[in-house]
């Protein structure tokens, strides 16, 4: 495929994301590079907006749920929103989310270890003080 054929093929796509016909063919070639970046930002914003809407919907359903007692037998059922962040649109986004989740998991493990050590030290200090006190 020649470059001309590639241009012919992608021109409608660029026009659909806001690049004018004149800019595509006669303007600075870099316009398309920035149009692609702008489109990526637009897609991400749209995805985030959809995610926010789903949160509002979920909250509305929770608020309305007391009207439907069949599921909970009059007890409060603890519901959790399973999608903590917007669905990734690209492999790059998916990798970044996985990386962030891994960091969060590691931080939780570190926090648990620190809490355990602090509790252990406190108990050890208390025992030591008791021995010192009893020894007097």
């Amino acid at each position, binding site marked *: 495929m*020649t*470059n*001309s054929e*590639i*241009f012919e093929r*992608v021109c409608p796509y*660029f026009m659909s994301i806001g690049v004018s016909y004149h800019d*595509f*063919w*006669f*303007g*600075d*070639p*870099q*316009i*398309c*590079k920035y149009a*692609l970046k702008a489109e990526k930002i637009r897609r991400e914003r749209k995805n985030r907006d959809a995610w926010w809407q789903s949160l509002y919907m979920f909250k509305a359903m929770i608020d309305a749920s007391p009207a439907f007692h069949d599921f909970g037998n009059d007890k409060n059922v603890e519901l959790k929103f399973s999608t903590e962040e917007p669905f990734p649109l690209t*492999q*790059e986004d998916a*990798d970044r989310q996985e990386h962030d989740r891994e960091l969060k998991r590691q931080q939780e493990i570190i926090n648990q270890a620190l809490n355990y050590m602090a509790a252990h030290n406190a108990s050890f200090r208390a025992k030591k003080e008791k021995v010192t006190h009893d020894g007097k």
Partner: protein
Amino acid sequence: MAITFEYEDTKYTLEFNRNAVTLMEKGGFRLDQIGERPATLIPMLFEGAFLMHHRRVKEEKVHEIYKHVEDKEGLIVKLANMYQETVSSVLEEDDKDTKKISWEVQ
């Protein structure tokens, strides 16, 4: 990215747009064949760089300018890069699939 110079009191800007690339290809230009047919394609590349801003400049004038250019090799390499950038600017960057080569100074 553009190359600018002055010749006989006229300022020239050499640059490519997609229309110029298309016209050059219709005229038979192929960047990937520049090593095989340099005598034909290098002058075409230089002429093509005038299409965006100086379409009315005559071919003889372009050849005359080319004769006076110093560091012709450097200019052609730069023009070839600019031509290639015009093409690659419509393609989405995807660094993820690109294998990175590490290097070191010894």
